[in-house]
């Protein structure tokens, strides 16, 4: 029987929630990596037992963890537990090494970016925000990091190389950190074109590569951001999240700092589709697994007040690709709710009746097994949820 595995990253560890296809009864395991900030966990589409996790700490830096058994056991790639030498001669202790590539051959000079106060600031690696496994190869995985850059591993996370064409795009001095830091938080791999990928950076904007990550171009035409000196600038926009309609890969949706946007042409141009949303600030956006024009957002009151409007936690669904939105409240708290839903904390499964999931900074993870009509909490009291990903298991 089919089932789902929900991978939850929180401020103090990771949790794995599993259920059968009914998504009514849940097993909860964790905390894994107790006490560590778990920014993101994601499973390989090519091998569901392969899961990558970003474990990070302001004290101890960045760690990459990997599971080859669906999250039962974990290890640092290239560093098997209890062994001091790699069985295949791979470099030791390299899996947590993210060094910007400044080499003459493949790298880009380490420039500066704009800091909060407008001065230029050195590029400094801080953590991995997002891990995106290849759609076809379990050993290939991409990492979006702060300060913004894109890394790739082709050996299961043992070693990492920067795809420096992005950081070296030339607009770096105009990029600036959002409130959470200058992070590359979204990586979308195109299922129809192996050479095409999208990333989003706060606050630089969205970028696309059509040559497997070597060269990049900003795709921010149509975005308007009144909070930057030039609202129509090529870069500098605070894009919070991009989601792709996988059955129509040129159809993209975006939750920007303010504004919900849509693109029919793989990001070449964007149109606002906020429509009747009560507020169009927010972080998450996702697309129904089987209906490319059914999308979900969780409106947040404002950039200064990161909680739902009126203390009512509401998911909004549009079945027309935006503009016309309906509020979804059944099973969600409708009073005194002041949590946030962070940008990587919404996901969908691909069961026949699409399940939608999201986690909150109050530690709840909600599931709707009926595409958003009704909701119930899987867990209520986890640490603040950073990320939610779902694996649909055969």
């Amino acid at each position: 029987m089919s089932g789902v595995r929900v991978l939850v990253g929180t401020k103090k560890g990771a949790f794995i929630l599993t259920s059968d296809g009914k998504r009514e009864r849940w097993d909860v395991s964790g905390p894994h990596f107790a006490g560590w900030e778990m920014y993101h966990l994601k499973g390989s589409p090519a091998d569901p037992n392969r899961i990558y996790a970003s474990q990070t700490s302001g004290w101890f830096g960045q760690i990459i963890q990997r599971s080859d058994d669906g999250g039962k056991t974990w290890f640092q790639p290239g560093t098997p537990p209890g062994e001091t030498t790699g069985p295949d001669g791979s470099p030791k202790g390299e899996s947590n090494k993210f060094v910007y590539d400044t080499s003459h051959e493949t790298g880009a000079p380490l420039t500066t970016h704009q800091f909060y106060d407008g001065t230029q600031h050195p590029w400094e690696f801080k953590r991995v925000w997002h891990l995106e496994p290849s759609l076809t190869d379990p050993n290939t995985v991409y990492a979006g990091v702060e300060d913004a850059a894109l890394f790739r591993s082709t050996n299961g996370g043992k070693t990492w190389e920067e795809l420096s064409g992005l950081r070296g795009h030339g607009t770096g001095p105009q990029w600036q950190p959002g409130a959470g830091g200058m992070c590359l938080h979204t990586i979308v791999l195109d299922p129809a074109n192996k050479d095409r990928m999208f990333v989003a950076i706060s606050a630089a904007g969205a970028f696309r590569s059509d040559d497997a990550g070597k060269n990049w171009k900003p795709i921010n035409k149509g975005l308007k951001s009144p909070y930057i000196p030039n609202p129509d600038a090529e870069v500098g926009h605070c894009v919070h999240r991009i989601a792709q309609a996988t059955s129509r890969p040129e159809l993209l949706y975006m939750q920007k700092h303010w504004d919900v946007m849509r693109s029919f042409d793989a990001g070449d141009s964007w149109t606002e589709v906020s429509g009747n949303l009560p507020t169009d600030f927010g972080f998450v956006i996702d697309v129904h697994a089987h209906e490319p024009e059914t999308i979900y957002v969780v409106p947040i009151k404002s950039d200064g007040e990161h909680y739902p409007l009126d203390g009512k936690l509401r998911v909004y669904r549009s079945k027309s690709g935006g503009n016309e939105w309906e509020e979804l409240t059944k099973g969600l708290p409708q009073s005194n709710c002041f949590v946030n839903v962070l940008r990587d904390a919404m996901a969908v499964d691909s069961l026949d009746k699409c399940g939608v999931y999201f986690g909150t900074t109050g530690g709840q993870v909600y599931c709707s097994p009926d595409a958003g009509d009704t909701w119930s909490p899987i867990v209520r009291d986890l640490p603040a949820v950073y990320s939610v990903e779902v694996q649909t298991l055969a």
Partner: protein
Amino acid sequence: MTVRVELPAHLRALARVKGEVTVEITGTVSILSVLDALEAQYPMLEGTIRDHGTRQRRPFLRFFVCAEDWSHDPLDKPLPEPVATGKEPLLVVGAIAGG
């Protein structure tokens, strides 16, 4: 020489050890040689105590030797006899900084 090292709880969990760890040092016993030996013995700790790129101590970690803060001393400074001979441990301490 056998040198004792006391690690923060999170690093003990990462290295999958309980209590103190010991490392064998040949030549000068310094924080540098202890860290080199520690990372060789527990490669999962690479990058966690000192930055991968700069090899500098992470700012929220401190080194204590015989009740003195050695965090800002040269890493290759010889450690005193009680630590060099294993009578006392080298303490790697995480800053108390909330979280």
